[in-house]
């Protein structure tokens, strides 16, 4: 009896320790607000509002999840004409830009000794307006340079420049795609990037265009590609000189000698002309001017095996809706224009304009300038012509070659005014910094594709003393004219929208977050004269970059480097190399052997008088003599500008490599690039029955009455883009731990993308998360039932019951459990991102994927309100929601009508390590990317 009491006391004491761990007593969250909250907003319930992502020019539609007024998660808007529900890794991470601890919080003026000091907006604006006038009188030109700008803001900038006599310069984008635009201008009189309707093609040839990661509108293209692939009768071949995420996901990947893409396309064009499908002809002189290549010498020139070439040309000629997309690396060298022109001609001859290549809805890159424009600007600046120089949302100091001396020349402007949110290289050079509000703090709209207008709507009041660009310009105009701003930007926009779409349209825009105007079909015709003239005066080959070459590739995680500052993006590893933090230089195994460099050994890359030290990463599947580095890994490389297109070449030619023998400490998260024949991704897909003895148990089987949550992941669709990983991090308050812990292998990601390389250098991606096993090894070994099986088939981890023996993690065959080695801190105000539906795990406890149990709980709560069961598709996990390819499906396995049930019972469906008898709830759909007939591909 006494013992009993004693034990109860122990119980109570432990209970009290539990409660004392609670902070909510201190936090004053039980508040009588002065006014009732806005309509539809209920404290404790999440609510969504539309907006648009501003992390790259693609302009994907956002649905901002808010709790108690704070944005805590970004999701793609289903049905949005650009991203249709998907959102990429950068988009997900955009939230960390909003809450970034290092944001510029107020206008900053450079004082005498070159230091920045905060000033009031009034002071800043008046200073600008004075120097505008001043420099005009001094005969200097006021200049306005911005990143790609569309929609009302672009109009406002025009108005602003017109009113204040400022010259608006061509927009600066590192990836201006000017070669393609140039070619289309020359062939069809449309200097722009058309909208490619990949979903309707039955054959796709992409030449250099990195459509899955960085090319023009990646999420949009990915979605379209998935639609085509699901349809089935679709083949995709990709040709590139290096190795990109896009490349490894194509059904077939050709490695072309750097700069020889034109030969390939010339050969194909001729094939199409001779064997069809030709719907339009070419003028005779054009046909004659078109260089002739036999299969053999085409193959010998491009480096693609002859039979492959023949096979390729068969496919193109047999296809009913063939689509050729050239771009990126393949249009960014001396023959770039030829490549683009020939691609355009194939599109024309195969008659896929406007069917697949739609100029009516072009991607609005017309106003985007080139490197040559920047050269000109730099020259003007150096001559001291510039008065006030506005630099908005652009970072030329970082992106331009050192040769342009842009850094120095910016200083020559009388007053350089930079609009931005983080202190990047360019802003640091400016005299005056005007802090921009995040897109989630401002009103606006964008028109990323003609006829598609997407709403930018504030989800919270500005965190800091910042303004949206629109408000800034309006107030400047007010300050100059002296009668103060005519209207706020919001009013301005509402007026614009009503003018353009009418009241109804405006309301639709505000409701749905986007408007898609119906546009008349645009028929373009080939300008035969120009085409043949062009072909006459140029050749498909010559002037190829001298080997060895260094390719400066765009980066999945930072685009052109603009997203470098975001903490989450360096935490999520690059899917091809699994390197999280740091820079590296990819090198083919062969070349590495020839140079005698070890993996991660540092080497000095030099070209001319430029040089940089980078660690080498041995990258299977890369061509010999081709080195690849992310565009943002290389500091002001000496890029040459291509004369005719003004596009910067992405090559550094004839580079030299000196190895240092020093192995750099960069975290490579993968323990092995190969799956060691363990059949994690069986191909051809088969169920792994090896040493699978029937399971006996002393314990009763788990019962699932209403729900058994399960997931199906289609590996044929997954392209490793890692959007799901970023989404998971943000949804589940997964801590960002940094390089030090990554080097120890202590990353905390609940979901990871495992790349596995085959002999052919092909890559298969396996998203690995908690498999929610039905007979889970982790559960039986937990001494305190912190890990247990719940009635809905989840392996639940009760954090505050966990004592931290780490036995569960040891015993997990999938190694998906993460241990909190330390107390993790979110630097303010990043802690605002916390999802209040989860606790932030304390040090010493194990955590793991929960199938987003908080979302399940919410869905069941809703269902219970109108006393029904949760419907199929009503609840989905963060990863599935974010996936641009739609590879992930989540649902109730007991519901035989559910999609996940259907997928789980396909013959392609298998589970990893089925032989262990763990009986997981995550089903993978195996099988080759391009359906059954993926030849030579693993």
């Amino acid at each position: 009896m006494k013992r009993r009491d004693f034990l109860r006391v122990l119980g109570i004491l432990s209970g009290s320790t539990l409660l004392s761990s609670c902070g909510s007593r201190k936090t004053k969250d039980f508040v009588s607000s002065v006014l009732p909250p806005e309509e539809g907003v209920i404290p404790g319930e999440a609510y969504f509002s539309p907006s648009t992502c501003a992390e790259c020019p693609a302009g994907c539609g956002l649905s901002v999840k808010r709790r108690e007024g704070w944005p805590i998660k970004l999701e793609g808007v289903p049905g949005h004409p650009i991203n249709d529900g998907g959102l990429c890794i950068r988009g997900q991470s955009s939230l960390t830009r909003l809450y970034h601890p290092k944001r510029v919080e107020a206008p900053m003026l450079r004082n005498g000794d070159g230091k920045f000091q905060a000033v009031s907006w009034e002071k800043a604006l008046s200073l600008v307006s004075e120097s505008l006038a001043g420099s005009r009188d001094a005969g200097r030109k006021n200049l306005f340079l911005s990143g790609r700008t569309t929609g009302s803001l672009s109009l406002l900038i025009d108005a602003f420049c017109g009113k204040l006599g400022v010259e608006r310069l061509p927009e600066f984008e590192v990836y201006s795609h000017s070669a393609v635009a140039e070619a289309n201008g020359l062939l069809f009189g449309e200097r722009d990037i058309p909208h490619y309707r990949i979903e309707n093609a039955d054959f796709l040839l992409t030449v250099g265009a990195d459509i899955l990661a960085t090319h023009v509108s990646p999420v949009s293209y990915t979605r379209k590609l998935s639609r085509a692939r699901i349809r089935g009768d679709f083949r995709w071949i990709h040709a590139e000189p290096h190795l990109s995420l896009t490349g490894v996901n194509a059904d077939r990947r050709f490695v072309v000698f750097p700069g020889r893409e034109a030969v390939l396309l010339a050969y194909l064009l001729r094939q199409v002309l001779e064997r069809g499908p030709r719907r339009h002809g070419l003028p005779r002189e054009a046909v004659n001017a078109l260089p002739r290549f036999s299969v053999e010498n085409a193959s010998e020139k491009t480096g693609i095996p002859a039979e492959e070439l023949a096979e390729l040309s068969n496919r193109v000629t047999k296809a009913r809706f063939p689509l050729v997309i050239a771009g990126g690396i393949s249009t960014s060298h001396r023959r770039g224009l030829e490549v683009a022109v020939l691609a355009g001609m194939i599109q024309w001859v195969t008659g896929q304009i406007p069917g697949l290549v739609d100029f009516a809805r072009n991607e609005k890159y017309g106003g985007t300038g080139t490197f040559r424009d920047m050269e000109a600007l730099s020259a003007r600046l150096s001559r001291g012509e510039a008065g006030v120089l506005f630099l908005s949302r652009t970072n030329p100091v970082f992106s331009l070659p050192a040769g342009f001396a842009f850094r120095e020349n910016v200083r020559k402007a009388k007053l350089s005014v930079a609009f931005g949110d983080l202190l990047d290289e360019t802003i640091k050079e400016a005299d005056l910094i005007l802090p921009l509000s995040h897109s989630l703090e401002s009103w606006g709209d964008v028109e990323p594709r003609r006829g598609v207008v997407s709403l930018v709507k504030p989800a919270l009041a500005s965190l800091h003393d910042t303004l949206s660009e629109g408000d800034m310009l309006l107030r400047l105009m007010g300050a100059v004219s002296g009668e103060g701003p005519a209207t706020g930007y919001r009013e301005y926009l509402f007026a614009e929208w009503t003018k353009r779409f009418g009241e109804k349209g405006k309301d639709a825009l505000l409701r749905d977050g986007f408007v898609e105007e119906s546009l008349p079909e645009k028929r373009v015709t080939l300008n035969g004269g120009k085409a043949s003239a062009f072909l006459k005066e140029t050749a498909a080959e010559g002037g190829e970059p001298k080997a060895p070459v260094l390719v400066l590739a765009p980066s999945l995680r930072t685009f052109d480097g603009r997203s470098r500052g975001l903490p989450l993006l360096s935490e999520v590893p690059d899917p091809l190399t699994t390197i999280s933090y740091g820079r590296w230089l990819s090198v083919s195994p062969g070349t590495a052997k020839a140079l005698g460099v070890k993996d991660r050994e540092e080497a000095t890359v030099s070209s001319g008088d430029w040089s940089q030290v980078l660690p080498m990463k041995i990258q299977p599947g890369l061509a010999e003599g081709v080195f690849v580095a992310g565009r943002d890994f290389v500091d002001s490389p000496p890029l040459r500008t291509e004369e005719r297109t003004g596009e910067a070449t992405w090559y550094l030619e004839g580079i030299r490599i000196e190895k240092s023998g020093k192995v750099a400490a960069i975290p490579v998260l993968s323990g092995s690039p190969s799956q060691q024949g363990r059949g994690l991704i069986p191909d051809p897909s088969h169920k792994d029955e090896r040493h699978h003895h029937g399971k006996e148990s002393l314990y009763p089987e788990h019962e699932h009455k209403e729900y058994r949550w399960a997931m199906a992941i289609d590996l044929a669709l997954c392209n490793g883009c890692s959007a799901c990983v970023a989404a998971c991090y943000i949804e589940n308050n997964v801590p960002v731990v940094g390089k030090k812990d990554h080097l120890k292998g202590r990353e905390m990601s609940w979901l990871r993308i495992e790349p596995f390389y085959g002999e052919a250098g092909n890559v298969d991606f396996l998203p690995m998360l908690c498999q929610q096993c039905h007979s889970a090894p982790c559960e039986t070994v937990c001494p305190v039932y912190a890990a247990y099986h719940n009635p809905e088939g989840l392996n639940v981890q009760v954090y505050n019951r966990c004592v931290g023996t780490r036995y569960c993690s040891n015993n997990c065959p999938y190694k998906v459990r993460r241990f909190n080695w330390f107390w993790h801190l979110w630097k303010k105000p990043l802690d605002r991102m916390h999802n209040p539906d989860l606790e932030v795990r304390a040090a010493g406890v194990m955590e793991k994927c929960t199938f987003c149990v908080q979302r399940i709980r919410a869905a069941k709560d809703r269902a219970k309100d109108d006393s029904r069961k949760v419907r199929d598709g009503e609840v989905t996990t963060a990863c599935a929601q974010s996936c641009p390819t739609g590879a992930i499906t989540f649902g109730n396995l007991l519901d035989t009508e559910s999609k996940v049930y259907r997928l789980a019972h396909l013959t392609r469906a298998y589970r990893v390590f089925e032989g262990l008898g763990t009986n997981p709830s995550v089903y993978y759909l195996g099988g080759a990317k391009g359906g059954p007939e993926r030849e030579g591909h693993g």
Partner: protein
Amino acid sequence: MTRSVRKPAILLAVTAYFGVLLLIAAGLWVSWQRAGIAPDQPIAFPHTIHVSKLNLPCNFCHIYVDRSRHAGAPSLTTCMSCHRAIATDREEIKKLTRHYEEKRPVEWNRVYFLPEHVYFSHKRHVKAGVDCSECHGKVGTMKKIRRVGALTMGWCVSCHRARGAPLDCTTCHK
């Protein structure tokens, strides 16, 4: 000889015995501390009048109680809708009016608070027909709100057990 053995033995036993009692007392004291918390509030709001005298239903002020996990505190506009006219001379009401006019929200001191790792929904409990008083006691009789329920896990579980409410950990642990 044998005595020299027994003496210390007895001593030991006695101290042990009292030690245990002391521990028990300490434990119970801690548990009692959990209940009966009654902090002063920025405005001494008397539930006695509003609940017992005026018979206002709980969700007249706590408007979210059947819609959200939080019951919610009334916005000052709700208060002022009556107190513009009523009892305006009282000290506490003057405080209230000042708050309202200076647009300062009132930050109440929590009487009922749960650890970060607990998911609790007022809505579910109210819809399941749990009467407010079962956890919050007869607030109508409290001039100052005092905590009634212990809010320990055992306290939650025993009620869940009694009512056949779900006992799965995920029901409450997040």
